[in-house]
């Protein structure tokens, strides 16, 4: 009988880029108007956390940092079978870059208690940096496995496959550790009936919801506000420039035989320059 594990998973609410809502003409996103969703990469991290619980036993805690509506993604993780959520929300976190974000999450994790393994998505769709996971591991002094596409646990050791360019590595790590989960990991399973029912109950009862989702701010977790938000961020976005408007002038080739259609394209483009000769 293996020891039950304390499993943490980090999730983020991001704007849904597939939806046009909240998309400004200059290409930036108005987060207040945008449709919100669970970061797609986090779905794999969530499944990894639930798999550990299912296979080896334990408790899953989902942790998120964001404005108050981010509670929606924590409720979503509860529907999938997560046991508790922690939401770090504080106006002083505005304009945090990855370093400041990793610091705030580090303090939240210490506050949340003992853990054996922390799962993160590979990256987020709104930042695309893939930096917060490793920066967090550095703060916590943990070994890390990024680009993890599968793993198992035996005798408190993690045996993992990590993707590298043109292949993969077989890794053995002690616990505790931090893992960022690749998209080639198992897909997120459907919400559980029990989880969905529970969340329906919680939505009707704030007091009960607070038992499952703890809301914290910088004071509760004991974070130094100088290291958070704008002040704690060593980088700034100095300028943005719109990349040339895409498309609108596609030369269409249709209505002839495949031979003619292909002929038109092969003759009117520079395709021939790249041939293997």
């Amino acid at each position, binding site marked *: 009988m293996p020891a039950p594990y304390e499993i943490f998973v980090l999730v983020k609410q991001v704007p849904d880029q*597939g939806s046009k809502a909240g998309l400004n003409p200059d290409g930036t996103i108005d987060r207040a108007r945008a449709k919100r969703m669970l970061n797609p990469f986090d779905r794999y991290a969530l499944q990894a956390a639930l798999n550990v619980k299912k296979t080896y036993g334990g408790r899953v805690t989902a942790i998120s940092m964001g404005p108050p509506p981010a509670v929606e993604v924590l409720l979503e993780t509860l529907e999938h079978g997560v046991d508790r959520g922690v939401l770090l929300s504080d106006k002083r976190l505005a304009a945090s870059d990855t*370093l400041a974000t*990793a610091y705030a999450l580090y303090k939240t994790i210490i506050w949340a208690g003992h853990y054996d393994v922390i799962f993160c998505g590979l990256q987020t*769709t709104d930042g*695309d*940096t*893939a*930096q*917060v996971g*490793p*920066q967090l*591991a*550095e*703060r916590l002094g943990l*070994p*890390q*496995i*990024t*680009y993890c*596409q599968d793993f198992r646990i035996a005798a408190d050791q993690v045996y993992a496959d*990590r*993707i*590298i360019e*043109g*292949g993969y*590595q*077989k890794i053995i790590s*002690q616990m505790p*550790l931090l893992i960022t989960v690749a*998209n*080639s990991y198992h897909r997120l399973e459907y919400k559980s009936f029990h989880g969905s029912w529970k969340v329906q109950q919680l939505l009707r009862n704030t007091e009960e919801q607070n038992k499952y989702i703890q809301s914290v701010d910088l004071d509760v977790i004991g974070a130094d506000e100088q290291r958070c938000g704008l*002040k704690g961020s*060593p*980088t*700034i*976005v*100095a*300028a*943005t*420039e*719109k*990349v040339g408007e*895409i498309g609108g*002038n*596609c*030369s269409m*080739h*249709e209505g002839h035989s*495949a031979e003619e*259609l*292909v002929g038109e*394209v*092969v003759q*009117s*483009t520079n395709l*021939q320059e*790249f*041939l*293997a*000769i």
Partner: protein
Amino acid sequence: MTEEDKTANPVRGEVLIVAEQILGELQHITLELLGAGTYLAGKLGSKLSCIVLGHSLGDIPQKLVACGADTVYVADHPELNTYRTLPYRRVVCNLLDSMDTPAHICLLGSTTTGRDLAPRIAAHFETGLTADCTELDIGSYEHKSKLDPTKVGLYEGCLYAIRPAFGESLKARILGPWKNPQMATTRPGQMTPLKPDPNRPGRIISIPVNIMTEDNRLIIAETLREIGKGVKLQEADVIVSGGYGLGSKDAFQLMYNLAACFANSAVGATRKVVDQSWIPYEHQIGQTGKTVRPKVYIACGISGAIQHRVGMANSGLIIAINKDVDAAIFKFAHHGIVGDVFQVVPEMIRQLEAVKQEKEVQTVVSAH
């Protein structure tokens, strides 16, 4: 910091590149970084250095000098043979700590190694790091916003880290002049290497390796590479990509056959077909896969959803093949062929083969 401090210090720290080798094979991204680093160091008037970690590195240090490094730091140790986060982090941080003048800039590739290591170094030094840059430059910056008074001032010699943002629709210039080293990772295939010059002078310095017990909490049991089979999507000139419209896993053979017509090509895919297990994840292009910018992108049976588009919209020439004339991909492709992939692609292969044979004949004739 006083006004005098900011301007009176002409001695700038070096530009440091962290080299990448896998199983003793120097990775192309390192040569690209040396090319970019040469430009940055030239503009700053500082030196370009490079650290390489591994065991029995052969002529790699000499190659790094030939490709632009003024100084190569060599960390040679059996335990550094294969990349591991903690030992590599230890050695690179020790080197940066030991410099008399702190390094001004530190660059890595945005590869599985660079994206694993760079954030650890940046967090250790509490310095800024910009991921996945497509351009780098040096310039001045005046910070006027008084929201954080400690940051106000005019800064010279700042690293401009330029990267796509918001699904490639914007380019953002990101700076962090307040703390050195200023760090960035660059996307493979974006920077241009120098032509190697074996007569370039440069110093090769062996540096100490002090790996601690705690660095060995994680070990690599095995590194498996399919040599020659690696999917180098970000370095390919031509990408042939397949979508759900292909209908089956077997149809991907057609993508490989078309890709084989080109000298430097790779096969890509949409998320939907990766989810169907028709092709492995490493081929996936788009929001949750890779972002590519090849010279030619041939999209076969791909509808052109935004999630795919953000990963390939900046390709030089986009040719789309789809039987649905209303497919979204025709809104941003350069050439659209409305037709059945199973007729159009074999025909394209046939015509390209014909062009190839013609060119080969010409080459033979001119050689005589």
